[in-house]
Structure formats: structure tokens, C-alpha cells
């Protein structure tokens, strides 16, 4: 009887031990986390560059920027959008999101403010998702405040929430993929890539007070 329980406990410990058995040190995991956060901030800077009508980035420059940002995502990754009017999320391939959704902001708005705040990545829960591939999950809060021409003409310099045409906050969840990559010149190494960025909830920041 006792032998049976001991075997069961041993098996349980072994299984849970194996599931946590990842080939990375704590330092490596921290580095992956910081790198993913950097990629996200780089992604935001691309969104700002593409959506600001005042930025001097011509078509080629924009294309380079889009391609550079796309390289930080795993192939096939999607960005989900949600709006106050339509709370059914819609998914876009990364490059399509940048080329159409974001690029269109500068035609519709005179001022676009986008920020990623509270970026949290659960690096302790690294899950194996295939051969030489691991996944971490994270969350962030996206602040998106814009002014159309009319509101911009009224108060161009004010950043008071109420002065914006739209000012909303979206709770998003994202995936971070750690993948073993083999390159002829650089050898075998682990690379960090961003996965899908999904929209969960949205709230209007205007009229909150």
C-alpha cells in the first residue's frame, strides 16, 4: 500500500519536474523577457512612426520599418483589434495591421498617441510547444488616444483626456516564443519572437471622472 503511494508521489513529482524542465537558466529567461519587452516597445515606435503625419518617413522608409518590425514576430502572428463601437475582436496579420490599420491613422487623425503600459511577462511559466520551441504569456495595457482635425484645431497642445476625439484603454494578452534557430554562420542559438497579440477588454477613458 505504502509502496503504491510512494510510487504515485514519485511519478507525480517526476512529471511535474519534467514539465518545468526547461533548458534555460534564470538569467537567460530574464533576458528573453527583457528582449520581448524591447520588441514590444519597438513595435509601438513603429506604430507611432507610421501613424504620425508629421514624421518624415517616406514610403521606402515605412516599408523598411514594417519589415523590421515584422521580423520580431513569429511567421503568421496576428494582431487583434477591438474598438468601443465594435467589441468583437478582429485579427490582422502583423504586416497587414501595420500597412492598413496603422497607416490609415494618419489620414484620419492629426494626433495619435499610442503607449504600451504595464507590460508583464510570466517567465516562470515557460511551456514547451513543440520541438525546440517554448512559449511565455504576457499582458499589457494599450493606451490609444487620437485627435481628429476638428479637435486638433480646437486644442492642439492639450493632452487632457477629454480633449481627444477617442481615448481608450485596451487590455491585451500576447505570446512570446523562444525558438532554437540554426544558422550556418552563427550556429545554433535561441531566439525570441513575439507571437499573437490579442485584445481582451476595452474601456473608454473619456468621461471616466
Amino acid at each position, binding site marked *: 500500500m505504502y509502496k503504491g503511494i510512494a510510487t504515485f508521489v514519485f511519478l507525480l513529482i517526476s512529471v511535474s519536474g519534467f514539465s518545468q524542465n526547461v533548458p534555460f537558466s534564470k538569467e537567460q529567461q530574464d533576458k*528573453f523577457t527583457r528582449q520581448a519587452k*524591447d520588441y514590444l516597445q519597438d513595435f509601438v515606435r513603429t506604430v507611432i512612426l507610421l501613424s504620425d503625419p508629421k514624421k*518624415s*518617413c*517616406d514610403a*521606402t*522608409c515605412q516599408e*523598411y*520599418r514594417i519589415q*523590421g518590425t515584422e521580423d520580431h514576430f513569429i511567421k503568421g502572428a496576428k494582431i487583434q483589434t477591438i474598438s468601443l463601437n465594435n467589441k468583437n475582436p478582429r485579427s490582422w496579420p502583423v504586416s497587414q495591421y501595420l500597412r492598413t490599420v496603422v497607416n490609415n491613422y494618419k489620414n484620419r487623425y492629426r494626433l495619435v498617441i499610442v503607449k504600451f503600459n504595464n507590460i508583464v511577462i510570466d517567465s516562470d511559466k515557460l511551456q514547451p510547444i513543440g520541438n525546440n520551441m517554448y512559449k511565455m504569456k504576457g499582458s499589457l495595457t494599450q493606451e490609444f488616444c487620437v485627435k481628429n482635425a476638428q479637435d486638433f484645431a480646437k486644442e492642439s497642445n492639450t493632452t487632457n483626456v477629454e480633449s481627444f476625439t477617442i481615448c481608450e484603454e485596451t487590455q491585451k494578452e500576447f505570446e512570446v516564443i523562444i525558438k532554437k534557430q540554426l544558422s550556418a554562420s552563427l550556429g545554433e542559438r535561441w531566439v525570441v519572437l513575439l507571437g499573437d497579440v490579442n485584445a481582451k477588454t476595452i474601456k473608454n477613458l473619456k468621461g471616466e471622472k
Partner: protein
Amino acid sequence: MLRTVILSIFLASFLDGCELLKKDITETEAITIDFIVADAIKDPDELREFVDLVSPIVSARSEEVALKGYDKFLHLYRAGLAPDLTKVDIPAKESLLNFEIFGSPGITKQREDIQAAFSDMQLPEDLTKSNTLKPEEILSSVKTFLGKEKVKDGVFIYSKEGGSSAIEGIPVVSNLDSLKGLIVDKYLQNKLKKFLVIYKIPVEDTPAEKVAELPSVSTSGENAILKESLLKIAAGTDPAERRALAEELFQNAFTEQFYVKMHRESVDAEPELWDYNDGKNYLLRRLTSEESIKDIQIIKVERSGENGKISHLQLVEIHHN
């Protein structure tokens, strides 16, 4: 018979090629570098950098030509004492004249001779006097001087403290090697041969933002030139011009496939954002589309044994936000 002739031609070409490979830089191109000194100099050692600058400048980018700005005098103008600048020439010792009589030795020897010719310099009184003009008056007198002399291009402010990137449109350079690099660039791009370096001009009281936690950064001459070139791309406002500069830099300085590892802000605190063998894409895609880079620190440069071009580059981008 024909085979012997062909073999002889081949051997002659081969030996000629070897000679070219072995050739030391002996060709020099004369340029002039004048200096405006806008505050008192108390120690003659301060002028050593001027001597260094007028000694033949050799750079991989100027290939086989060294730029020589030396003369029998160091040509200086003193600002800060009166609205009109005072001309102050410091003569070289006779050894420089001997050097001219006995012909041109190698560049290294020329540099040594010039340093020797200007050693133990006595500071002329005008250089040691304290300023009587206010900073804005000094700036105005220098501007008037530049207008009178019709100097537009080839003017640099040399300020070890750094601060602004430009004053009145004149680039501020904080590193002597970078200054040499810029002079070489101007010569290569526009065949410019007349240069003016403004020293000790009152600069804004805002020190350059300190970059903390960086590892020891190489400040060798070539790296300083590379840094200036990368910053020029990053700081440009016209995207097409930035791409042209990036393409030119890639063609001139990098191997076809070079490796770039780029960190943001600090290699201690942040991981790399770019770690690929497609360095060309880094130069063309990222560096030309980034808008907030305020500084670049070069951490590591490796060159190809074949052609001396850069095959490996590790750097840190420092951003405004």
C-alpha cells in the same frame, strides 16, 4: 616562346600587385587647417592636439592618401579679446625645415618630425590673456570673421565637453579622432582642402546626457569615424539621403555579409534587439528609419583579414525616449 612571354607578363603583373599591397602610404595631399581659439590657453600642452591634427591624417577611408595640414607655422586666430580676431602664428622649430629639405619619409616619421618640430612651444601672449568679451559677443565676432573670410564649409567646433550637436549650424565635435574623420570625409566627398577649427567657443551650459552602465567603449580613431558616420545616418531628416549615406557606408566600410549585434540603451541592462548576419539590413532598414537615436556607442569592431572591411559590429543605440 609565346608561353614564356605570357609567363613573364603574368609574373610582372603579379609582382606589381604585390608591390601595391606592400606599398606604404607615402602620397600626401596638402590641406590647410586654421584654428580659432576663443578663450585663454594656459598650458602649451593644450596645443598638442592642434599639432596632431595638422600632422598627416591617415585613414582607411582616404585609402592611399594622407592629408597633411602642416606648415612652418600653426595658424591661429584669437577671439574673445576684441571684436576683430587677432592673428597668432606659432612657428615650428628648424627640424621641420630639415625634414622638408631632405624629402618625404613615411607618414609615421613625418608625424614624429612634426610633433618634434612643435614641441616646447612658447605660448604667445595673446593666447594666454583672459577674455574681455562676453560669450555672445565672442560668438558674434567669430560669425563676422567667418562671413568676412567667406568660410562656409569645413568649419568645426571642437569642444571636449560636447553639449550641443551644432552651434549656429556649425557641427560640434567632442573627439579628436572624430574631427579627423570628418575632415577626411569632407575631403573625400567634396575635395575640400581648407578647414577651420574653432576651439573653446562658449557652448551651452547643458552637458551631454550621461550614458551610464556602458562597458568600456573603444575610442580608437577608426571607430570614432565609424560612429560619426552611423550618427550622420541616424540623425538625418531626409529619408532618401539617409539611405544613400547608409548604402555608401556599407559599400565603403563593410563586408558583403556582416554581423551586427545591437543593444538598446545599455548592454548591461538590455538585451540585443538586432543579432543577425544581415548587417546591411540593419544599416538600411533600421538606422535609416529610426527617429530617436541621440548617440551610438561602438562596443566591438572586427575587420576582414582580406580587405580590412568591417565584418562584425557590436553597438548600443542610445535613444531620446
